[in-house]
């Protein structure tokens, strides 16, 4: 048992999801504070219990998404805290930063062993924004503090570079780093658009390190924290829940599928996992 855990949200120049991320962490029963990329000393002094790298376009995605932020001094601290086992979550651009930092899959310390490459979809290129479905792998559910998640989860994606890529010699060991996979509303995986929206290897939507404490995911759970954030046409269980809550009058206060990631972490700190 510990006092209210503090989750640090790291803001880089160009991050644009830090405030809603901070808010949903607080709504999940934890404390949260935003630290700018150059506040590494303040970050170090406040001894956070976990870290979130939010979505956005750090350094305007110049050179390659996440590449410049990965070299920032504050990432030395995040890297070292992850080595000590503290939970780290990267969402969208945050995931790109974790990949470019070599923190996931992290088979060899600090080595960059994967990439979040440009989406590869027949007939179109560039930015893609839509709702997808995913499920957590069995291994991730066991070892990842963010992922006490069963069933099929709808979440929004919004990215141009979200295709997980691994070197061919590493394909054999990628499965054990798989944390989240794209699927349809019934849980069936497919490598084809729109089920796999970007051509990601093994339909990967999220990748973790071997210990499971670092998770890089492209979808945005903070944008599906409340049921009212779900679109009316969403099929599946969560679409039904949305309709039911709307009819029962609990629409405004009912938590959505994205909340599971953050309540999962809160439960982890309570020792309930």
């Amino acid at each position, binding site marked *: 048992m510990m006092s209210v855990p503090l989750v640090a949200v790291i803001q880089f120049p160009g991050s644009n999801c830090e405030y809603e991320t901070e808010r949903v962490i607080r709504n999940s029963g934890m404390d949260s504070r935003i630290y700018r990329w150059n506040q590494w000393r303040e970050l170090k002094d406040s001894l956070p219990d976990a870290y979130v790298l939010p979505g956005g376009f750090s350094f305007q995605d110049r*050179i390659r998404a996440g590449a*410049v932020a*990965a*070299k920032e001094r504050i990432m030395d601290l995040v890297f070292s805290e992850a080595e000590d086992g503290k939970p780290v979550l990267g969402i969208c651009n945050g995931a790109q930063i974790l990949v470019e930092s070599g923190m996931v899959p992290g088979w060899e310390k600090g080595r*960059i062993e*994967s990439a979040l*490459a440009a989406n590869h979809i027949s007939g179109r290129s560039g930015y893609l924004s839509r709702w997808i479905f995913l499920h957590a792998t069995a291994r991730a559910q066991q070892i990842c503090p963010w992922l006490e998640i069963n069933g099929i989860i709808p979440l929004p994606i919004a990215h141009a570079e979200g295709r997980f*890529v691994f070197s061919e010699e590493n394909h054999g060991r990628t499965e054990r780093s798989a944390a989240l996979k794209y699927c349809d509303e019934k849980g069936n995986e497919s490598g084809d658009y729109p089920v796999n929206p970007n051509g990601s290897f093994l339909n990967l939507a999220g990748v973790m390190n071997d210990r499971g404490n670092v998770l890089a995911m492209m979808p945005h759970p903070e944008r599906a924290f409340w049921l009212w954030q779900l679109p009316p046409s969403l099929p599946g269980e969560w679409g039904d829940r949305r309709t039911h809550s709307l009819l029962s009058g609990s629409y405004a206060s009912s938590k959505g599928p994205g909340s599971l990631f953050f309540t999962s972490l809160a439960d982890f700190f309570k020792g309930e996992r």
Partner: protein
Amino acid sequence: MGNISIIVRLKSPDPAAMTAMSTFRRIYPEMCPDSLQRYDYWCFMNPRQGRETINGIVSRYHDIVNPNKQTWSFINESGDSDDRSDDSMVWIDVRVTDRIDSVSENWTAILRRSNSEVDGVLCSVLWRFGFAPGVSSDNARNKVLELTVSTYRDHGLLANPVSQKIDLPAPLKI
């Protein structure tokens, strides 16, 4: 017929090149180049009417060259650009190309559909590293590879070899 390549650059200073330079200065103060330039590099495969075909494509599609903010030039067969020359520095060029690239695929499809008489298009980014005279070419090439290829968190910046191909063509005379 053969392939014809062009390079495209911003008229204003390139923000990605500026960010790369400032990052190099911070993480590689001893290896930092004296100049860094960034270009879009377009290789058009087998244009039927040679440069005339490319002139037509470039003038028709402002997504390739936006004349309001970009300039472009051909790269001739000897690897020289028609743009301008600068021999006062040691130049090393690096071309970075996505191994799988929707942009190239989609431009190939667009240009084939519009009967523009090319077999395909390959888009890359060309980075030009300039070092002050006195640096040997070998030394400069080693520095460029170290600065470019991202293998560890604290090694390299411009290309992730997991998803990108990196080649060092003969330096262009620009």
